[in-house]
């Protein structure tokens, strides 16, 4: 079943076509990867999907409903969670309170919200840091906190914006496992990632963006052999 369908979405910033007529489809239960060079428009597309920006045109249909005109908090309420490329923890709040903010998206009652927050913190393996102020966490822990918060909102679709960036190799391996676990729990995932091995091993389908345009779609194997992709993106990293 199609969970998210994006049809001809574009977003221009004073003449710069950041997202140019992008269409993609995500089925329930999939992990979909989104790759592309810096400035290809990946994060802009995320921002359009999550109501951060309003798309200049095209439609975004989530679970059969148009969401392209909804504000960010309503899109969250519909069941789309996200993390940010640069983690944005609420520094003055503890890990638990950070996560509770998300849990209130699902639950009205305080006790239920706290129970759900605790469950999510446990799920990402951050229980020991529950009472720590978010500002005192290291990069890896901040990423986990972002995941815990996003999960606490009860998403059906989770948008991950470079959750592996800045992680140590060990932390990356753990993060891959965590993402698998999230999918297993029934959450569909759309992820932007630059760490190719991780992305290739996780994704069912990969989309490639180049200068705002979608240039390729396929399984990880298909995409990594695509000439255009190698030229515009993979080739560069291979040389480097």
């Amino acid at each position, binding site marked *: 079943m199609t969970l998210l369908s994006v049809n001809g979405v574009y977003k221009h910033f004073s003449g710069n076509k950041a997202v140019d007529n992008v269409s993609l489809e995500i089925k329930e239960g999939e992990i979909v990867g989104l790759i592309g060079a810096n400035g290809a428009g990946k994060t802009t597309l995320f921002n359009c999907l999550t109501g951060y920006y309003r798309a200049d045109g095209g439609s975004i249909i989530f679970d059969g409903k148009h969401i392209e005109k909804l504000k960010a908090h309503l899109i969250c309420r519909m069941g789309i969670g996200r993390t940010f490329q640069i983690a944005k923890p609420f520094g*003055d709040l503890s890990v638990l309170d950070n996560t509770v903010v998300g849990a209130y998206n699902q639950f009205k009652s305080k006790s239920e919200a706290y129970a759900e927050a605790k469950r999510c913190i446990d799920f990402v393996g951050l229980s020991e840091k529950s009472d720590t102020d978010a500002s005192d966490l290291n990069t890896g822990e901040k990423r986990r906190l972002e995941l815990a918060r996003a999960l606490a909102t009860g998403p059906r679709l989770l948008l991950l914006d470079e959750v592996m960036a800045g992680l140590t190799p060990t932390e990356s391996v753990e993060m891959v496992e965590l993402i698998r676990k999230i999918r297993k729990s029934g959450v569909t995932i759309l992820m932007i990632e630059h760490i190719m091995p991780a992305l290739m091993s996780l994704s069912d389908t990969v989309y490639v963006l180049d200068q705002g345009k979608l240039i390729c779609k396929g399984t990880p194997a298909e995409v990594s052999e695509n000439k255009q992709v190698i030229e515009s993106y993979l080739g560069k990293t291979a040389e480097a």
Partner: protein
Amino acid sequence: MNTKKINNVTLISLAVLATAFLIVADGYILCIGISVLIAALLGQSWNIMSGYAGQFSFGHAVFFGIGAYTSTLLYTMFGVSPWIGMFVGAIAAALVGSAIGFLSFRYKLRDDYFALATLAFAEIFRIIFNNTKVFGGASGILIPYVQNAAEFQFASDKTYFAIILVLVAAATVFIAFMTRSKLGLNLVAIKANQEAAAALGVNVLKYKLIAISASAVFAALAGTFYSQYYGFIDPSIVFASAISVEAIVPCIIGGSGTLYGPLLGALLIIPLQEICNSAFTSISGVNMILYGVLIAAFIIFCPDGIYGRIIKFANKKRGK
């Protein structure tokens, strides 16, 4: 000690201090006590929207003035008791606060620009009231002296002290409950990062408006109290930027976004200001120089404020 313990110790100390003061103090000292509590109430009001929710107001006088004028005009024009006028004023201020917030946030004013907008709104109100004859114009309104408790007038300053003490306590209790609720968490989240808050399902606009309205309510209560206590208001007093400053300073000094910071701040700066003013009788505005220096010093050397610093220090020690 953790934050909770520090809060409890502070609460008990402040309660004892206030009770003892109420019994012992009279005359000039009692007046200063009342000034401290007015500043404390303004401070707690500012604390809600600016300290916790991070929406910096530089125009809290607008809410103070609306509170003062609503109850006073209702009383002098229609004979409505200021006890009732006080709540009408609070509601009026909340509505004006929502309107200011809606307009500002609708046009995506943030941070400094929002602060400037609040300053502008306070000035607009001052000028409107200055030029409206029915509202007493620039010469202000004298509240007829009847010394009747039903009209919010008392013979003894001790009664006034008790009333403003109750109002400060009410504001503090409100904040204490707020910080433990969804509202408080959402406000702090918005202050930290409103995009991240929205991504977690927080209706940022709604919560900002709640913060402004709640803040406006307490500033308006302070305004009504002020008019009843001093018996005279005019636009250049109640809509003055000096009032806006008096809402900010206790928070910056005492610790904005903390439960008791503004109370400690008010307790420190008002007596200091009195001392300065009596020491430099020939120079007016010494208190403003003092405020300026103190704000600059605290922002540079102690941005958490006194109470914020104490809590951070205690928590760090506990962590080790």
